[in-house]
């Protein structure tokens, strides 16, 4: 995957809570067997049915940071949701809380999820809506989000990132390759598994 160190871009305020992955990309787009090309399905129902949907507004067309309400990415485990966001030009999603599987999937493909308090999200929403061209910088090295407040003022919001995941993202490392370094541990474990545990081989 692509490494993530720091990213600067404009942001889009998605003022919705509990955005499930069916909204990020509906099931009909999941029939494809490729890993790219999902941008046409990104939030497609809201884009189609709601003229005022935030991503239909020209000032947010080029946003690369999505700032969402709490509980982003609930529901289906579809990693296509992460791919669709990346294909749609997003590198970062900010929310006060993410669903576990979505958050986990995002770390596998280089989409950064940043957790902020809802109060910080509200401030960021207000700043973006005041000036949609405002540049937001998300620095994974420093674990900080920085944005302008106007009048020469800027805000810096620290965020948490566990050291291991951060290291993997900064280096763009592939999990499978890392695990393969521990094949001897896997073999040792397999040697002591219970003999009666089932296999899926046909038995009748």
């Amino acid at each position, binding site marked *: 995957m692509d490494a993530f160190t720091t990213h600067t871009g404009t942001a889009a305020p998605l003022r919705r809570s509990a955005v499930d992955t069916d909204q990020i990309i509906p099931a009909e787009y999941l029939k494809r067997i490729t890993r790219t090309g999902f941008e046409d399905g990104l939030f497609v129902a809201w884009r189609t049915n709601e003229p005022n949907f935030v991503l239909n507004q020209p000032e947010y067309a080029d946003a690369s940071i999505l700032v969402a309400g709490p509980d982003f990415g609930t529901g289906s485990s579809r990693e296509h949701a992460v791919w669709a966001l990346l294909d749609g030009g997003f590198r970062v999603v900010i929310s006060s809380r993410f669903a576990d599987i979505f958050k986990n999937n995002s770390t596998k493909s280089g989409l950064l999820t940043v957790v902020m308090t809802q109060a910080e999200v509200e401030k960021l929403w207000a700043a973006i809506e005041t000036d949609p061209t405002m540049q937001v910088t998300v620095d994974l090295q420093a674990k900080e989000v920085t944005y302008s407040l106007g009048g020469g003022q800027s805000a810096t919001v620290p965020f948490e990132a566990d050291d291991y995941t951060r290291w993997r993202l900064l280096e763009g490392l592939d999990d499978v390759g890392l695990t393969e370094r521990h094949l001897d541990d896997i073999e040792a474990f397999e040697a002591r598994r*219970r003999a009666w545990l089932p296999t899926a081989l046909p038995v009748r």
Partner: protein
Amino acid sequence: MHPAEWDSYSGIDQSPEGDETVPKTLAEKVYDAHVVRRTDGEPDLLYIDLHLVHEVTSPQAFDGLRAAGRTVRRPELTMATEDHNVPTLDILAPIADPVSRAQVEALRKNAAEFGIRLAPMGDRDQGIVHVIGPQLGLTQPGMTIVCGDSHTSTHGAFGALAFGIGTSEVEHVLATQTLPQYRPKQMSVTVDGELAPGVSAKDIILAVIAQIGTNGAAGHVIEYRGSAIEALSMEARMTICNMSIEAGAKAGLIAPDRTTSDFLQGRPHAPQDADWDAAVEYWSTLRTDDGAVFDAEIVLDASSLTPFVTWGTNPGQGLPISERVPDPAQIADEGERRTAEQALAYMGLTPGTPLTDIEVDTVFLGSCTNGRIEDLRVAADLLRGKHIDPSTRMLVVPGSVGVKSQAEAEGLDKVFVEAGAEWRGAGCSMCLGMNPDQLKPGERSASTSNRNFQGRQGKGGRTHLVSPSVAAATALTGRLTAPADLIGA
């Protein structure tokens, strides 16, 4: 292996979290027994006992293996089936939708190339991945089970640690039979007391999700406990564990007991003879220790529960069926108010409307939540000798070919057909509408599935989640109906 060797087997003694003197939850026991490698500053490497695969979330994972020149490490611990895309009519004909067909064909090619057992359409073992695992006896207590599907939590009903993963993780498990994991937090949901007639496992879990919210259990594994849980059948326990993800939980599980072993005994992949005895003895150790600490605890009184239905667009937006559509103006929190307003606008509902006044176009009985034999029996009992409302369509989709055969052997198919319902082939079907079974824009369903998200059952479709008995009662009247309200009707 001799029982005396099991303690040394567990592989947990080298870690502080494996300290035998520290009381552990069931989930912690299963987790710790699968740690392949534990090092400070890194996630644990967890061994996966069973990997279930379906056509939607696997093609890119197999492509990844091919691109890196990797193989499947343990193909015999991997089982594939076709479920999400499969039509439920003309199931032996080629799939009409070329994109769906290509996806199913990709799975067939990948299973053949990598040596994985596949139960394709037409096979007696085909069905929804979370229905066939238990049905075949592949799902057993104490195992770690994953699948590229969030409803993998279903298998926790057996006391397994089972959770959904993304496609990158599918690739990781295929290649290494392991996953990097962090030890999850622990939540208990204790349900004591007796359920009233017509109230079921589905109502318990909808009530739990309404209480803790659609992502309220994020980062946690839920253990369901208490006398009401112990009294449930395996099918009912699967319904509850299935929807753990709808509360945002990593997994949900229930300690194995006699109900569990009775369900498993004699199934094709269950242990046999001396292995069976050894297995049962081991399973009996899979209980939360006295004094184990949960990070969060929820308590529910089963006797206070009534049938639950959802009114909104996430599974946490549910109420007892006797209530009315809520008024967003009464919600203090701005974010929640906006969410409720958006949900009601999408659902086409007016605040204050009695839920039992809501008319539905379609009733869907099926899915990995409620597509098992017991679910069909409950619905058939209410429909026997009656006819569904003439303006309502009812789709009955068994969770697997095995469930379908069993239902037909019991004559349930005839009950459904004589009542005016459609009896279909097995698959995920209208739960997510990846096959032709979809709602039309504006159509309203009462559905025994697990998600009422916008457009989940078809673009513009409106979903109310219900139990199988509420589904059947609703089909008879054409509006959301509690089974108890049918008496004398």
